[in-house]
């Protein structure tokens, strides 16, 4: 294959699928750098880089599997995000991709070797170009488009579309593939069907003033996209959601925002159609597994420099499901009152919220209620003293159902953190003490007995700052104790860090040491030692080389019993990366 580009001929011989994105990256880099030549009209901003991360884990004794891998053994990530700008035109690139798939959840979970299509649409990788001319934007590649809270926003789609914003008018459309077909593999991939999506928005919007927007989002699996249906619960699905959003901001900082949405969702495209099935032509032909429900949310409140107040209500119907928010939890109603205010010449800041969440709304017998209460209070008492206080309460209660007693869990957390600072001509000292008390009560649904789980955490931090030197050390000591009937965990951590520049500030060094002593009940103590360092080097005005190395050694006491008394592991993590910044 031959490409002619800026009078240069590139010959693409047969390459592996992995190399193709790298070649594209090279070509686009050439474009970016050439564009920078015309300084008067064209500017390039953004960055590009490459990072390698290596991970190692050694466990002793051999055969002990009590500690699992926490990162991929080897991973290389590429970033390419320049934006070429002219007075009327901008061309941002957003390429982020890696060499090793690490999917655990979702359609690509457990995937090994990927096809080109799977690589392109894997959520690990982004390949997007969004050329923009005045009010018209072309969207190409992977896009995570957030149209509204109830239609679409959490799913990346690889495809093409546009976003037109002439004056107050809004017209958006995008279509593509959000997941490829993945064959089920025993012990590997869960399997998935290829899903095609489209979304559209139509309406009017004036920023910070008003909006009236109609959203449509559709996704449909191709049930013939994989030769054998995956076993278990992976089913080909189809969903269509439409919503209307209304927003208005009025004088005095008052605002009102609402959205109402209707979803129609087919849970299994293999099931037969039925004359009574829910259908909305031409968007979706239902079958016996098709459900239809609605959702709504509304917010009203007032914002100002020193005082905010707002009420938020959200209802998600039991059958409301949208392909744009795959993890959205249905069948619930939330209402929350939020406030924030500054007082005493801005030296006191308070944020608070109180509300309730009702789950299983449609299920009168098992309706579950969750109380939500949060408070954070910060006061700068004088030049030396400040204090932060926080309190959170989450209570959850449901009816008994088939059990003798209903569920009742209450989580209470209280924290206070006074800080004292003092200084002289050479140093600023900071001493901070924080104490947190956490109580978690849980009722047993069979016996009705409530068990209390109490946690106390104390932290003392000292940070001296030298005004005449560039050293920045810090020291901290933490004590943690958790008690529940029959079990007690104690932890004590000492840590220290130091940051300093070197080589005329071209090198920034940071190091940290941490030792933790932990003990469960009467077992002998576990010991943990962590050391890490960061070395950032400024190679030139635009290029930075970053390095990170950490090691974590943990040795168990006798809590694991024979033959694993004294079992230990050594975990290491190494990261190095080059980052180039475009523009001035």
């Amino acid at each position, binding site marked *: 294959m031959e490409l002619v580009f800026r009078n240069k001929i590139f010959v693409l011989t047969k390459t592996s699928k992995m190399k193709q994105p790298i070649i594209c990256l090279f070509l686009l880099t050439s474009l970016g750098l050439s564009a920078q030549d015309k300084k008067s009209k064209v500017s390039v901003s953004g960055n590009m880089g490459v990072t390698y991360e290596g991970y190692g884990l050694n466990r002793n004794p051999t055969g002990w599997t009590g500690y699992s891998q926490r990162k991929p053994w080897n991973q290389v990530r590429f970033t390419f995000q320049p934006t070429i700008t002219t007075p009327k035109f901008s061309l941002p690139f957003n390429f982020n991709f890696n060499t090793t798939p690490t999917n655990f959840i979702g359609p690509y979970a457990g995937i090994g070797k990927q096809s080109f299509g799977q690589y392109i649409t894997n959520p690990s990788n982004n390949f997007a170009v969004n050329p923009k001319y005045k009010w018209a934007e072309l969207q190409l590649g992977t896009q995570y488009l957030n149209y509204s809270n109830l239609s679409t926003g959490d799913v990346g789609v690889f495809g093409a579309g546009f976003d037109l914003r002439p004056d107050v008018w809004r017209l958006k459309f995008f279509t593509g593939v959000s997941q490829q077909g993945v064959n089920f593999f025993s012990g590997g991939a869960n399997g998935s069907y290829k899903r095609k999506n489209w979304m559209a928005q139509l309406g009017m919007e004036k920023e910070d003033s008003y909006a009236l927007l109609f959203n449509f989002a559709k996704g449909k699996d191709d049930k013939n996209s994989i030769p054998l249906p995956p076993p278990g619960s992976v089913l080909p699905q189809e969903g269509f959601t439409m919503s209307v959003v209304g927003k208005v901001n009025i004088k005095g900082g008052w605002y009102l925002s609402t959205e109402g949405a209707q979803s129609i969702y087919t849970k299994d495209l293999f099931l037969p159609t039925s004359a009574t099935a829910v259908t909305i032509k031409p968007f979706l032909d239902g079958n016996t*597994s098709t459900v239809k429900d609605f959702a709504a949310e509304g917010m009203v409140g007032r914002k100002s420099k020193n005082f905010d107040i707002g009420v938020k209500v959200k209802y998600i119907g039991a059958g409301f499901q949208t392909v744009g928010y795959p993890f959205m939890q249905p069948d619930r109603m939330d209402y929350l009152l939020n406030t924030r205010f500054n007082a005493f010449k801005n030296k006191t800041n308070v944020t608070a919220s109180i509300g309730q969440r009702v789950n299983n709304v449609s299920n009168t017998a098992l309706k579950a209620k969750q109380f939500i209460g949060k408070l954070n209070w910060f006061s700068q008492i004088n030049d030396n003293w400040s204090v932060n206080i926080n309190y959170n309460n989450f209570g959850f209660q449901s009816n008994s159902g088939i059990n003798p007693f209903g569920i009742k869990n209450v989580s209470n957390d209280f924290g206070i953190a006074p800080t004292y600072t003092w200084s002289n001509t050479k140093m600023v000292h900071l001493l901070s003490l924080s104490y947190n008390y956490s109580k978690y009560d849980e009722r047993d649904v069979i016996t009705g007995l409530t068990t209390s789980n109490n946690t106390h955490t104390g932290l003392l931090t000292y940070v001296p700052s030298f005004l005449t030197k560039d050293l920045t050390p810090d020291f901290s000591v933490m004590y943690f104790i958790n008690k529940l009937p029959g079990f007690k965990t104690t932890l004590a951590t000492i840590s220290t860090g130091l940051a300093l520049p070197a080589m005329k500030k071209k090198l920034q060094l940071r190091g940290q040491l941490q030792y933790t002593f932990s003990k469960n009940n009467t077992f002998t103590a576990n010991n943990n030692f962590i050391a890490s360092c960061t070395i950032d080097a400024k190679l030139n005005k635009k290029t930075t080389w970053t390095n990170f190395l950490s090691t974590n050694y943990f040795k168990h006491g006798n809590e694991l019993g024979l033959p694993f008394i004294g079992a230990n592991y050594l975990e290491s993590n190494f990261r190095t990366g080059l980052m180039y910044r475009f523009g001035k």
Partner: protein
Amino acid sequence: MKKIFYILSILFFAKNSVAQVNTNLVLSPNPPASLMQWGVSRETLTFIVFPSAQGIRGEYKIKTEIKLSDGTVIGKTDLNKSKTYTLSSATTIFNAADVVPLESMIFTGKHKTSLEKSGKLLSDNYEICVQLVRPPDFAPFSEIKCKTFYLAATQLPILMKPYNQEELDYDIAKTTIIFRWTPVVPKPKALVTYKIMVFEVLQNQNPVQAVRSNFPILTQEVRGVTQYIWQPRGVVDLSDNNVKDSAMQQRKGLDGTVKGGSKKYVWIIQSFDNLGQPLGDGNINADGVSEPTVFFVRQKVKDIKIKDTDKQ
């Protein structure tokens, strides 16, 4: 007299032959609330038709009725639309897709509305009765077999702590982070296994993208409890702090103070039954994953330091 004798004899033999088609109904006592899910989980309902010992042949339909505990019928098979089967000389095993064929079931009242909205019947005690009938007059062809069951839609856990957008102090979080969540409702008799997973949200990622693509820095299973105390041991770090264009986010505080760097994480809970199957009762992903929750780890002390040193 002879004619009457013949008629009585035919009726007698017909009755006996009907009684000789034996069936058996097996139903899980706590089936999924989603009726569509009955067909997916084939072990939910099994209806066995044994061959006739007398060698009787003929066609039949499966007549199903779903009743409330007071006997009110809330759903039944539309026999005019339902499938016709031929009695075989071998044992025939049917599952929920054949016995409760949603395409030919008629539901009434609020149960019909509930099914259209969510695909689930309302939480209650029910009885299902199944019988073979002969077309075209739908005369009984077997005895009625009934089973009672309790339906309750499974609600996955809600993540309580860290709550959504909570900022944790790095100096504490590097040693320990407490996770709490609500239990699966209704609480099953067997212990539920909860798998806690934490993912780092990398630069340019949204939280759900991180969940669907990144390697989890924590994967821990616990059984029957709704709290887990995690000791991150070095994996929660602010190592790339101060690196421009990194995942660290410079954030403005309420008082206008520029706060220190923070890292974004997202955590989820995946719930499994005692057989290792994900719970969720027909949720969109069918993987038992609760709604993800985002939290930040932030060096809080440094915030105040920046503010105070600015004053010097």
